[in-house]
């Protein structure tokens, strides 16, 4: 490694200062506040505050609604990350085969990324609205009793579909770039070495995409955990019942709707710990299998 030398001792710190300031103000400060809040009990009007130690955590973790929320989050995140990555990979592989109009095709596939989460959610809600949804009608005529507003699993399917749909573009972009980085001669060499298309994909293309796939796995997990709030809020608002209430949505609901600030803060802290642990685990165990070219 080369060590950079600076003409002045203070200069490197000055150069780092803007980035550090942003991190401090927008991450460490709120995180610290959440940590502090999680140890306090406060009434909805902020008139009385009392230190309660870990009582908030104890209550939250003993709450069956919280355990339910964890289950919902696991199902939702895994389904969203897996479906959006799988479909994006399929589309990227197919887009590689196109000879004419490749750029147009790619551009069109990237557009959904520009749609705001809440709007994406509304679009899906309209399309699949049980009474007037254009796409709900064929579902009903196929004999499916389609009603995501009353049926928990169907509501889950709908938000997974909306969240995955929005993320497909992003994943597609990375997979396309990843596929382009694989030299054509490797595929040709494999073809001459007797591998059919499916085997070439499994033994050559997919392993060489591993760095991209790993990166997207981390990004998509974080996306599903946090950035899908808008979709859930617009489509189901956590319902019906609590069947689509993810951890993030519960933090919002308990803190800003029900004004149970201490519980909400405790949940934030737990969520933070979960994400840190998850990302660390991904780097520790999955990244080992990744070959960087």
């Amino acid at each position: 490694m080369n060590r950079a030398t600076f003409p002045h001792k203070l200069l490197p710190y000055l150069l780092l200062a803007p980035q550090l300031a942003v991190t401090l103000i927008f991450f460490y400060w709120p995180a610290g506040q959440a940590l502090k809040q999680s140890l306090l009990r406060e009434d909805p009007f902020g008139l009385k505050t009392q230190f309660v130690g870990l009582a908030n955590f104890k209550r939250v973790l003993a709450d069956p609604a919280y355990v339910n929320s964890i289950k919902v989050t696991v199902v939702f995140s895994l389904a969203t990350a897996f479906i959006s990555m799988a479909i994006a990979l399929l589309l990227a592989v197919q887009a590689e085969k196109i000879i004419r109009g490749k750029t147009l095709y790619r551009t069109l596939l990237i557009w959904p990324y520009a749609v705001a989460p809440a709007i994406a959610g509304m679009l899906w809600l309209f399309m699949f609205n049980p009474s007037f949804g254009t796409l709900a009608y064929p579902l009903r005529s196929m004999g499916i009793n389609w009603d995501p507003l009353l049926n928990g699993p169907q509501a889950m399917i709908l938000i997974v579909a909306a969240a995955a749909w929005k993320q497909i573009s992003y994943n597609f972009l990375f997979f396309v770039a990843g596929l382009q980085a694989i030299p054509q001669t490797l595929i040709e060499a494999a073809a001459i070495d007797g591998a059919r298309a499916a085997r070439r994909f499994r033994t050559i293309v997919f392993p060489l995409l591993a760095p991209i796939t790993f990166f997207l796995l981390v990004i998509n997990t974080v996306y599903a955990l946090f950035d899908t709030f808008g979709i859930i809020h617009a489509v189901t608002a956590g319902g019906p019942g609590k069947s689509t209430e993810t951890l993030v949505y519960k933090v919002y609901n308990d803190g800003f709707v029900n004004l149970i600030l201490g519980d909400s803060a405790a949940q934030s802290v737990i969520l933070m710990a979960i994400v840190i642990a998850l990302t660390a685990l991904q780097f520790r165990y999955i990244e080992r299998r990744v070959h960087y070219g």
Partner: protein
Amino acid sequence: MATIALKDVRKNYGRNKVIHGVSLDVADHEFIVIVGPSGCGKSTLLRMVAGLEEITSGTVEIGGRVVNKLEPRERDIAMVFQNYALYPHMSVFDNMAYGLRNARRSKSEIALRVANAAKMLELGSLLDRKPRALSGGQRQRVAMGRALVRDPAAFLFDEPLSNLDAKLRVQMRLEIKALQRNVGTTSLYVTHDQVEAMTLADRLVVMNEGKAEQIDTPMKVYSKPASVFVAGFIGSPAMNILEAHVGVDARGIAIRSGVTIDLPEMNLPNAGMPLLFGIRPEHISVTSEERADMILTVAAVETLGADTLAHCRMAANDKGSDFVLRVPGMMPVYAGQRLPVMFDRKAVHFFDVKTRNRLF
């Protein structure tokens, strides 16, 4: 082991014609080198044999079987690529075993065949390494090993040495030649390097603009080039080619007024016929004034060590140079010197002005 036969093979990309009908019969065990400048279609031709490019018309046969419609994996061939195309996530062993695994060979057979190839190529100690931990020459060997273990009907080489440095290239050239002699697999080898072409080939295919200009042994291609293009492409420095016409009494040729070369023993055609006269730099020798065919003026000198190249003019006030001479390195030559020269009568070439093909 197999023969390869190309019959009037053509390739068009839309309206753009790239290969204009190449026919070639390759005997079993033969080493054929396809050589030509970049863009002449030599790689495309090889890729058509490999099955990586579709054949627009004509047929390609490998081992007597028409393979036009067959996938690369069904053609029983192995290919060595210019950039080696090693699978970067696999060890050397897995790279070499890949084809055999695809063919569902037994573990013990794979281990045996990889071990044999590794021994032949001195890769034994590198089998666990990944390609990125290998030098260029080692990667080249692995690419060869990958072809070798499969024991295919034919080897196809696509400029395999052009990514190596000059010294390694000479060494690998000798190794490839020895290896091919050893295993006897029919080989097609594409290169733009005429030295590689001359040294490796049993027979050469000299390609230009999608056509095979000449298919013959290296020595024949050198001594009897079929066209002006071949004459200029094979041999370094290139053959001297000058416009000339048959002299008045058909006993010699005139290069320009007052400059004639007597060629009494050659059967020259009608007097006055225009033609292109060619002679290689190594077939012009310096002599005494009395015996000289011509007296040249040296315009520039390039010292190569063993030889010296003298760029000469027919008249001192000409521009550029008309002839390049290869003279022994010990001989002192300097710019401005008058050089009496003699042409080797057995090594003169004549080409048609229009078709640019060999006349005699």
